């Protein structure tokens, strides 16, 4: 039942764009609504399936009919359902948002195409989550990856978008090929396409480790674990914002799902799996947030934060895998629940943040933090939603980010307490690293909130303006509400998390034990006390003489918006501190005389993997390949010579004995 419901959801969502194409002639607005309605209906169906499965009603089904891989199995268990939840919710939110953000009336050429690819990408994700058969998994995976490529390159007339799309496509392909190897090896080792847990001892440890390494690479590429994150920032910057939200919110999570699923299939996990995942997670989290801090483009910044959050999730998963390898099931359940909850949470708040940023971008036409400012006055609701998202993503109480980070921390601390030797060092350094990440994220989002919404507009075109339209506000409000709800009542999700962890660990008794009530109390106290105090202050201020004046600028009487501290200046101390990793490229004017002339300061931080490694390597390879071309300069004589040389060479290496 639940699997069928989810399949129906996938079908509806996938078909949404095509349905809209069919009714295109009745007018762009109607087509928009048809697509959104189809997605909404599909999402409801998928959500229902998810809730059903989380409540213990998961099931599976088999399709037989001469497919290349034999009988195709699909199923929905708690683990899949937990991932299905944010996929369905965010898809619906983004589709609603698109009604106002990317209407067909304003984008007659792009919108119909985007709707098709958007629906297919989301439908592909659901198929991946449902797949219990490796070929189905790969098919869903690739549908998702390729449709996402088309969604990213919606505005393909822009060269930057094309480049980013191509980078994404190539990375997606590399990831698919890793998975191809993974599932081929799985097939060779088990003789089956079915994704069911392997019996202990059925497959040699070396093969299992190879499977895990392939999964880590292939899924890590999709999830954006450093150093495989390089495609993420350009792709997120290039895509229409609601697509970025979907990409960042759920698509990269499907990579996480893959790692969890594959790890759950392999019976004998040595500790190094978890250790490597943990180490990768720490590196991703720290570098992700450090690079985010140095960005000037709000969408690139949010994309780097996805790298950071994937790192946090990976830290949780790594801790869970370590605990699983050492038999600490309680700890494993705790860390895993943290990671899984962070998956859900990140989908909610990252979706919210992207949608909020999109509203600002649509209103102002710029993504540059240094050009924005003071938008809270024109768009107070958007600003409020964005602040909720920011507080969530930084992991602060009373919102949901705190809950999942709390669980990850708890798992990590338990691993640290139980560990000794090298593992203690690893866990011992991971915890403060996580704290550093938290601090940096705080700085970063203070910077974003401050430079986008607070202060006064840095550009005259941004004064005035209006709040985002309802179809855009409603999804944001919904997501913000969800963030708050999980922050206040995390215990409501505990059974679901327990069930999902039990599936992922293959250990039904691995239940989540965490002081979720206390967290709830802290959250409620924070909210209540703030409300009380705010109320008191308000009453007091009503009575007090309230004077409005200029911002105090130490006596300077005519402050202008350009005198505000910019986002780049705000981040400068931290960028300088981390310059050993960020390697900022700075062009500063030389100030020679007492009255120097005009000067311009410019600084940028480029991606270390993409711009310092991959691009130069690709260029070098292309140049080398260019030299190779000299062999093919049109001379038929040379070509004939090659034939003969091949003949002689092959004859020479062939055995000629009787």
């Amino acid at each position, binding site marked *: 039942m639940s699997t069928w419901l989810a399949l129906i959801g996938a079908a509806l969502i996938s078909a949404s764009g095509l349905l809209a194409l069919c009714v295109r002639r009745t007018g762009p607005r109607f087509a928009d609504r048809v697509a959104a309605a189809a997605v909404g209906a599909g999402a409801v169906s998928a959500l229902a399936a998810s809730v059903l499965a989380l409540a213990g009603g998961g099931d599976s089904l088999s399709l037989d009919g001469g497919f290349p891989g034999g009988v195709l199995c699909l199923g929905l268990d708690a683990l899949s359902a937990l991932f299905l939840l944010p996929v369905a919710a965010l898809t619906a939110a983004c589709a609603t948002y698109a009604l106002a953000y990317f209407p067909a009336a304003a984008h007659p050429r792009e919108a119909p195409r985007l709707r098709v690819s958007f629906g297919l990408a989301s439908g592909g994700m659901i198929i991946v989550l449902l797949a219990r058969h490796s070929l189905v998994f790969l098919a869903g995976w690739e549908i998702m990856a390729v449709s996402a490529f088309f969604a990213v390159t919606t505005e393909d007339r822009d060269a930057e978008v094309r480049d980013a799309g191509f980078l994404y496509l190539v990375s997606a392909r590399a990831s698919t090929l890793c998975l191809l190897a993974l599932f081929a090896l799985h097939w060779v080792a088990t003789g089956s396409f079915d994704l069911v847990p392997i019996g202990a001892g059925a497959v040699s440890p070396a093969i299992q480790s190879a499977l895990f390494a392939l999964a880590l690479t292939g899924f890590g590429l999709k999830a954006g674990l450093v150093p495989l994150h390089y495609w993420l920032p350009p792709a997120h910057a290039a895509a229409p914002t609601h697509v970025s939200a979907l990409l960042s919110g759920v698509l990269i999570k499907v990579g996480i799902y893959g790692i969890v699923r594959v790890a759950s299939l392999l019976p004998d996990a040595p500790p190094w799996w978890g250790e490597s995942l943990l180490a990768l997670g720490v590196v991703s989290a720290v570098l992700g947030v450090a690079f985010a801090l140095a960005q000037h483009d709000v969408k690139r910044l949010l994309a780097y934060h996805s790298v950071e959050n994937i790192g946090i999730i990976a830290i949780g998963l790594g801790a869970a895998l370590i605990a699983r390898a050492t038999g600490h099931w309680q700890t494993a359940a705790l860390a895993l629940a943290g990671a899984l909850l962070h998956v859900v949470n990140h989908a909610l708040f990252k979706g919210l943040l992207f949608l909020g940023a999109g509203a600002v971008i649509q209103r102002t036409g710029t993504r540059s933090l240094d050009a924005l400012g003071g938008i809270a006055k024109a768009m107070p609701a958007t600003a409020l939603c964005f602040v909720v998202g920011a507080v969530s993503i930084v992991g602060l109480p009373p919102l949901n980010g705190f809950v999942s980070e709390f669980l990850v921390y708890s798992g990590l601390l338990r691993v640290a307490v139980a560990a000794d030797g090298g593992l203690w060092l690893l866990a011992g350094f991971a915890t403060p690293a996580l704290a550093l990440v938290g601090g940096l994220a705080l700085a970063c989002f203070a910077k974003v909130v401050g430079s986008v919404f607070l202060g006064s507009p840095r550009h005259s075109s941004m004064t005035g303006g209006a709040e985002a339209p309802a179809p855009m506000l409603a999804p944001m409000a919904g997501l913000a509400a969800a963030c708050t709800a999980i922050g206040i009542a995390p215990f409501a999700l505990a059974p679901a998390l327990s069930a999902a962890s039990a599936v992922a660990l293959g250990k039904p008794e691995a239940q989540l034990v*965490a002081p979720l009530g206390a967290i709830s109390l802290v959250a409620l106290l924070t909210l209540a006390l703030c409300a009380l105090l705010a109320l008191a202050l308000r009453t007091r201020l009503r009575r007090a003489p309230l004077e409005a*004046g200029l911002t105090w600028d130490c006596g300077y009487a005519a402050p202008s918006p350009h005198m505000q501290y910019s986002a780049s200046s705000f981040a400068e*101390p931290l960028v300088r501190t981390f310059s050993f990793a960020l390697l900022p490229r700075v062009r500063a004017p030389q100030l020679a005389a007492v009255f120097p002339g005009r000067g311009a300061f410019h600084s940028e931080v480029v991606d270390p993997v993409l711009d310092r490694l991959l691009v130069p390597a690709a260029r070098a390879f292309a140049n080398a390949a260019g030299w190779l071309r000299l062999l093919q300069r049109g001379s038929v004589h040379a070509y004939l010579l090659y034939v003969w040389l091949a003949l002689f060479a092959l004859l020479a290496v062939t055995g000629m004995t009787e």
Partner: protein
Amino acid sequence: MTLSDVAFAVVIPLLFPPLMLGVITRTKARIAGRRGPPLFQPYYDLLRLLRKGVVRSRTTSWVFLAGPVVGLVTACLAAAIVPLGANGALLSFPGDLIAFAYLLGLGRFFTIAAALDTGSAFEGMGASREAAFSCLAEPAAFFALLVLVKLSGAYSIGSMLGPDLPDLWARGAPSLGLATVSLFVVLLAENCRMPFDDPTTHLELTMIHEVMVLDHSGPPFALILYGSAIKLFAYGLLLARLATPFHVGGPALGAAVALGELLVIAILIGVVESVMARLRLLRVPSLLVGASLLSAFGVLLLVG
């Protein structure tokens, strides 16, 4: 915990903290050869501010007022997590050390946001510095807390600093010692004391915390001052308990001893502020990284 204990644990953290500020000011005055203001001057200041009117910049929004409110509330909640002496804390659950750090983080987030809301270059500068330095202080604190977690096997601040604390010192004195020093540095940094920040300076360019709240006035400003005092109280309590792991008598006596230690810490801070100059801002990160390394070394010592 009885109801009276709870009332006790609520009232003391609410009433005591401004006194620490008074003690610090008095200590500094004495060392400088002055008499200084009365010990209760901070209380008078708060009351005076609460009565005053408010001037608000036209560029600000609701965020500007959220800063003081959230800052005070989070400081109070954080203080509730720290036990007064060997007594249990008001709020205690496994993992509450994370809540402690993150609650203070929430306060910081809104303080910074409120500073940025004014659109002033000076307040932006202060916010930027605050964000950067607290970021770097975070790992140092966590290394130190991790040492405690590892040694005690407990996950709440209340139990870590509970009756078993002397035993922990016996097992891991070097690590705990390093952690204590490092926590003291964190305390100075987080509460904007010398050598990180000079609370008494009049030059906005060199300020950190003070410049962030330049535009606040009246009751909101009182909330800010009060909040920072409570924050100092919470950190001081943590440090005091860690540095003096003795088990003294009943709850009342224990609390009294703890408050006494807090005053000692206040004096200590006063001494530090009197004998040290403020660091160059560019050097501040080095000091914080040094503190991190110190407590990281404490973690290293626990290998095996």
